[in-house]
């Protein structure tokens, strides 16, 4: 049984929804290339020479076909004395399930697009101390030259 494995060079960080995928190699490999058969964290075993070829091509990302059908970030590879290189991988859930994620019902806590400037933002820093602006009304009392009000009983 063979497994399709496409290796790419990706320059986008995991917390972006898009990937810039430059194909490095497309292989049909025996499924025993997978040393650890784990959907989320498989370990791929390749010849040292093959790995060097991938690495020189800048491969840091791959897609495994059925039964995996997932995109993976490649971890730090380890070359063994047996002439094989072991590459730990971790599933890219955001890109693999992007359409399902985009269809998710969400409530935002922060957003670049749908935000409310009336909400307090802890990332707005406050300088210490108030500025004071005085504005005076036009009316002026005259305590230095007032008048008297006399109230008397009389006609």
């Amino acid at each position, binding site marked *: 049984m063979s497994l399709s494995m496409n290796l790419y060079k990706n320059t986008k960080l995991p917390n972006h929804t898009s990937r810039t995928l430059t194909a490095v190699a497309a292989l049909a490999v025996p499924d025993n290339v997978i040393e650890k058969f784990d959907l989320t964290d498989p370990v791929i075993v390749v010849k040292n020479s093959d790995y060097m070829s991938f690495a020189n091509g800048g491969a840091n990302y791959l897609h495994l076909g059925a039964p995996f059908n997932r995109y993976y970030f490649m971890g730090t590879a380890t070359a063994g004395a047996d002439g094989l290189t072991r590459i730990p991988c971790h*599933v890219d859930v955001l890109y693999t399930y992007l359409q399902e994620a985009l269809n*998710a019902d969400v409530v935002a806590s922060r957003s*670049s697009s749908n935000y*409310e400037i009336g909400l307090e933002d802890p990332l707005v820093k406050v300088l210490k101390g108030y500025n004071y*602006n005085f504005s005076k*009304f036009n*009316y002026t009392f005259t305590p230095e030259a007032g008048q*008297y009000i006399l109230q008397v009983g009389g*006609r």
Partner: protein
Amino acid sequence: MASLQISPNPNGSSLSVGGGGSGEVSEGTRIYIEYNRKNWRETQGEWLPMYGGGWDPSEYRWEGVVGDGGFSRIAGYIGQTQPIDGSASAGNLIITVIGIKTGGVIDPNTSINLCSEGEWTLSTTNAQGETTTTTDTSSFVGGQTGHSPGWAPIAARVEGEANASFPIFETAAEAENFLRTGEGDPLNGMVPVEPNDYDYYIYNRISTTPGSGAEYNYFYRYKMREGKRLCLFKEKLIGYPQFDRTLSGADGILTIYKGDSPDQDPFPEANSTVLHFLGALAKYEGGTTWYPITYETNIPIADSMQHAQDYIETGDTTGITGIPGQQGGEIGEPTDQTEQGENGAVFSYGGGMFRLSNAQLASFYTEAFNTDPNVMQSILEGLQLFGSNQINAIHDVMYIPFAAEDVATLSSGNDIYLGSYKMTTLTGDRVLKNDKLINMGTHYFAPPYGAGDHRNYAPLCRIFVMLPYAGTHELQIDKYIGKNVTLKLAVDLTTGAGTYFVLSNNTIMDSFDCQIGAHRAITAVDHAQHVAAVTNAILQTGTQGIKTVAGATNAINPAQAATAGREATKTSLNAAGLGGAVSGAIGTVVTGFQGMQSTIDYPMTERGSFNGFLGMFDVKSPYFVFCQMQTKQAQNLIRIKGKPSAAGGKLSSFFGYFEAAAVDLPSFSGTEAEAEELMSILKGGIYID
């Protein structure tokens, strides 16, 4: 309806000016004068048209948009000038528009020539139905310089009509007075407008700048055919990043009205309406963020076109996500101002209240306590109603630090009686009615960070008002920011008590009591009471009047507060109450701005009212004190970390940085662990490219 008629003699031609709005304008208000001028000439004893074989239906329209920096009112006035060639005395009839500063869209003092080289009669009917007529009989006769003899008119007359959207006065002085006061009697009346009869409205201003500007100004009202409905639905429009709502059901609209601002009433009828609007708080797409500066509507909103159509056709509210609040309500009639009463009590009989100067008061005391036995005998006899304590006829002598006529209606030169005894050495100005409010003016508090920004509010911005004789008070800034704030004062001349009224856009929001008049002791009893009052006032000032919170996170020592007469609550010196009240206030501050700053100092010292004569040493005018903290926000904050949001919807409706407060995945094809990781990523923040 008031109108202005201009009728040339003798053939009955006429030019009338009708319409006339309230004259109240704001930035963006469209104003116009449109008129139809018809010129005639008389040659060889008969009237001939100036052009062609009949009336020349030359139609003219002058219009413009009020720009920023203009006055809040606009007006026109009728003027007459000499003909261009100056060869005759008949005047051109022009309307000069004033009320627009340089820098507005329309030039100041724009003149529109309604009638040139004519002979006319001006008939005006004002809003009260009164008609006046002015005739210019010195018609233009003879050839014009530069015109061929065969063309030159013997006389030229005009006929037509004009409509203006603002009041027009007879003289420049009247127009200028209207600009200042909003009052006047324009020739074309200030006709109350009939509001639109409409079923739906949507007001939508869309800008690329948060809080200001507008690339799109949509102010629509719709009258529907019977049984028809409108509905908006959310739609992502390819190629139109500035819109996210689409109007459905437009074929059921009977009448479309399109205005220039939400405050305009009525809106003029329009032939068409746009169908796309922006309702999201902000929409980032194509490298630009679009903001709905205004988004007000009573049109229901559906989550899909299908649900919108279902609602329109059947009234089914499935998928209707929101029906914005309707105008008005059942609680009471909505109003934009509060009405204040007037004191109708009359003081012209049954005793008296007089305004005296220093010199007059001296004369009063001299005569009242004269040692002349004849005077004293007269007083004693005249004061028999007061028994053995004749001095009781003098009820009160109070010093006021303002002119009595500011708060009362006076009559001058009145005799003063002590009981039945008529003072012989002085007369006084009698207070007839204590019926006036002192209007101290109006200030406008512009939101320093633009409308809607949380930084405009406490504790980052605070407003205090320093009121003479009433001390310093903090105003709740929400009530006043972005509003016209008016201060009025009522003073009771019988007691010297005063009440300040603080109005926000003509609505009373706060009032503060105080003691302005200072009573002079007359008898020993009065003196004792006066001393007691001052003593109590000092105690009260210490315990009630002053509040200083220095360092919001610092504990406040009630003992220190009591000793210093500071840092106390407004109600008591009870330590528990003090601690509770202050910690409650501080708790609010800390909760609201936790993590933003280490301390927030209380910006002003508050003081209650003054008593006795101490108030005379207080500030002489009211002051507003606007306290503002300076804030810093990274220029790229919105792009890389967004801003706080409470928006909900599909993740696909967001762009740029997004951080989830809650996530629901309606379907997911991965493992449970992957679902948890995905939700964790969304809550940690992602960039939707």
